[in-house]
């Protein structure tokens, strides 16, 4: 007999009820107020200081502070040998408990307010799928950073082989300053400017602010009124582009500052990132079912990519499944291989393309909506007197959509390795998904009328992780059935017609 393995490090579990850190009485209202800062600022400085504004502002702040106190008073949690229990809720009392052996992920988040006081929110996820939001998840918002780290150890301990104290982990990837060049290649900057402008306009409307009294704004509007549209359009476009580049750079840094991906001895992979809000997501490697490589059109032009994890127990809210932020494709692929512990990433596997009949379908599906769009514009020209250049201009979209269809077919494909089923698709948002074959828990085969005529079908792998379903579109009939049979042995074979 060999000697027994050393007992795992014992981390004491607290069986009695505990409260969240008392500093949360301050932190929760602080975080809420930080979010409302622009509104409060506008309320006080841009408006005329009428009494009701001051009263409304003070009352809102008071309610927020009172709510912070009450929610601290009404929240308690305990960790027993088998369960994590949380009782909370000011108006509606909620009791939630999850079995500890079901815990798959532990996610630590610290917003700006949390960080000022050295606190961290702990979000514990199970592999259970959420029928309604929040099911199967317990959030302790918040405990001290040290306690949060201790809880992470306690929750993920089951699998641990004696973790050395202060385990910093093996580094898989860190942020490189040069990656910032990929930031402007997402539309996030443009979107955030749009949201900001919309928010400000709405606020100005609601509060009846007098923008015209601010000299700068008046001068800008005056200029806008005087200028010819031939200079106006390029200048506006230029300003929007510059602003969106700045906004996306800022966003990239806020989200990915100090990005760090490490592997730990307790069988987890940990992602840490963020400037104001820091996140630290631990993914149990046993629960990792694959990765997805995202290459949206703009990012692809600079050979960049983003990598996300396909795992049970993480939802996609707030990008908690992100493994590598926009970075060089080679880096994303290297990390993919490292995380999956294989020599080359399955996402770079040569792709088998689908029958030529699939190309016709891709083109038809790209062109038909465009034709409808052009027809509607033409209809509006005839019926509603829209200028004719609108629909004439939209004709340009027709050849473009043919090109999109051709490219979609060129990209479309699948591959099968000894451990992964890989599918690639998309032109505007290209993604390559590598899903563990053992993670597939069922198939869905869809055939539309047109697919049946073209002898094609869509094979969807059903899985407990990530999206829950990963489709491979327009496989040839025989080709697709062979893939399904090979990927999960002894499942579909019994229903195949022997040739």
């Amino acid at each position, binding site marked *: 007999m060999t000697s027994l393995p050393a007992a795992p490090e014992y981390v004491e579990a607290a069986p009695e009820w505990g409260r969240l850190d008392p500093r949360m009485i301050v932190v929760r209202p602080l975080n809420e107020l930080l979010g409302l800062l622009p509104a409060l600022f506008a309320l006080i400085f841009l408006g005329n200081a009428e009494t009701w504004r001051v009263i409304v502002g003070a009352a809102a702040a008071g309610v927020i502070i009172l709510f912070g106190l009450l929610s601290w008073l009404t929240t308690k949690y305990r960790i027993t040998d088998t369960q994590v229990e949380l009782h909370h809720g000011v108006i509606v009392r909620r009791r939630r408990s999850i079995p500890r052996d079901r815990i798959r992920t532990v996610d630590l988040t610290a917003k700006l307010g949390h960080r000022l006081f050295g606190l961290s929110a702990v979000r514990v996820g199970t*592999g*259970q*799928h*959420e029928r309604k939001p929040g099911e199967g998840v317990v959030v302790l918002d918040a405990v001290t950073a040290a306690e949060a780290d201790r809880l992470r150890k306690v929750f993920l301990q089951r699998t641990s082989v004696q973790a050395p104290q202060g385990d910093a982990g093996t580094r898989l990837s860190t942020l490189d300053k040069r990656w910032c060049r990929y930031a402007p290649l997402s539309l996030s900057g443009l979107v955030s400017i749009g949201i900001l402008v919309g928010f400000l306009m709405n606020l100005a409307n609601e509060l009846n602010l007098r923008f015209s009294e601010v000299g700068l704004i008046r001068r800008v509007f005056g200029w806008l009124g005087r200028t010819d549209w031939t200079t106006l359009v390029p200048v506006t476009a230029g300003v929007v582009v510059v602003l969106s580049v700045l906004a996306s750079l800022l966003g990239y840094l806020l989200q990915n500052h100090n990005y760090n991906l490490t592997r730990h001895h307790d069988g987890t992979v940990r992602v840490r990132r963020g400037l104001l809000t820091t996140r630290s997501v631990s993914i149990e490697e046993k629960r990792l079912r694959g990765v997805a490589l995202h290459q949206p059109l703009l990012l692809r032009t600079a050979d960049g990519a983003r990598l996300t994890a396909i795992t*049970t127990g993480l939802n996609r809210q707030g990008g908690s499944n992100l493994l590598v932020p926009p970075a060089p494709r080679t880096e994303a692929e290297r990390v993919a291989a490292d995380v999956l512990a294989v020599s080359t990433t399955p996402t770079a596997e040569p792709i088998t393309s689908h029958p030529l009949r699939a190309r016709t379908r891709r083109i038809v599906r790209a062109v038909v909506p465009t034709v409808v769009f052009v027809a509607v514009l033409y209809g509006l020209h005839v019926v509603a007197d829209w200028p004719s250049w609108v629909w004439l201009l939209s004709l340009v979209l027709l050849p473009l959509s043919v090109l999109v269809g051709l490219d979609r077919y060129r990209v479309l494909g699948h591959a099968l390795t000894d451990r992964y089923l890989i599918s690639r698709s998309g032109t505007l948002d290209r993604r390559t998904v590598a899903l563990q074959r053992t993670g597939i*828990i*069922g*198939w*869905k*085969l*869809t*055939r*539309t*009328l047109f697919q*049946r005529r073209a*002898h094609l079908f869509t094979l969807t792998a*059903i*899985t*407990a*992780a990530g*999206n*829950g*379903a990963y489709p491979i579109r327009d496989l040839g*009939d*025989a080709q697709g*059935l062979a893939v399904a049979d090979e990927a*999960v042995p*002894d*499942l*579909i074979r*019994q*229903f*195949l*017609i022997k040739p």
Partner: protein
Amino acid sequence: MPAGDTLVLVSESEWGLRAPANLVSKRAVAHWALQAVVLWVVLLGAQGVVWAVSDSPPRWLGYTAVVSAVVGVAHIVVMPLWRYRVHRWETTADAVFTRSGWVTQEWRLAPISRIQTVDTGRGPLQQLLKLSTVTVTTASARGPVTIEGLDADVAARIVDELSATTQATPGDAT
């Protein structure tokens, strides 16, 4: 000659995957037809109300009403029969296998070892017709496997069988 060959639309050409063995209950046809009738009565009824209430009903209302009536009748006649030819189910020792749909058809396959729960549900129309829907959920967030239009007794039997085999199969189903 199979009955469906008289209607070209309804013919289901074979491909590499065979159809599941069992048909659903014949009363499911009535169920689908009733559902379609309810839908089209509501749609036509809404147009009727506009026509009755408005002083000068728009000219196009007549056209849409005629089109709805024609499409509605075709839908009520064709859809249930087509569905009845498509909807099938089968359970084997290690898998649940279903086929559903009409214009777009869907095959679902779930290994018994991955099943988490098996339930039956009965809507008001189904209760009237003594029909049941069996829902088989797995750990996936995307769509459980459902078998609709089963005879209530058959459904109960399937649930019993599946529950028994599921409990006998080890694994945490993820």
